[in-house]
């Protein structure tokens, strides 16, 4: 079970200037949805954008941890 505020802050730290929304999809704290608009996404494909988010949450996800079991991701580029 992950702390939503912490998830949000981890993404914000990894992607300064990003606008981040974290939602708990089931109420169980382990199926989350994140919507991230970040300036760093400019010029990147979806794969690379999602990889940046996974990297930020590395310690919360498999194989390091089972805290976040499923993560829905929606990304967009935020204009600087």
């Amino acid at each position, binding site marked *: 079970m992950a702390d939503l505020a912490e998830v949000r802050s981890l993404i914000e730290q990894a992607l300064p200037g990003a606008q981040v929304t974290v939602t708990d999809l089931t109420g169980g704290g382990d199926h989350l949805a994140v919507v991230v608009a970040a300036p760093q996404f400019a010029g990147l494909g*979806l*794969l690379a954008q*999602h*990889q940046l988010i*996974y990297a930020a949450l*590395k310690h919360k*996800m*498999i*194989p390091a941890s089972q805290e976040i079991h*499923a*993560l*829905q*991701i*929606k990304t967009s580029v935020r204009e600087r």
Partner: protein
Amino acid sequence: MSLTEEQMLASIKDVIEKNKVAVFMKGTPAQPKCGFSATVVDIFKKMGVPFVGVDAIEDPRFRHVLSAHTSWPTLPQVFVAGKLIGGCDIVREMKATGELDTLVAEATK
């Protein structure tokens, strides 16, 4: 006898290389064990695209070997023409924009 992790990695590479569309998933295409995997299977079925679905959770070591190889933590993982394109969200988004059809058409022509 179960596979060693080296053998698993070899078989993963083999599946990726030999199939135009490969899906590493929870469960099988006939019996997905997760909504995200089911969504991806459904998209390819509706497109009428031949694909291979590999159960990545039958042996718990398998998904670790896979994720270490791909730097992608979650399942499903979808490969088109030997390249990881992403998971359920990306496949869904690419389907909506038409990008997926283009990519698959290129790969299977």
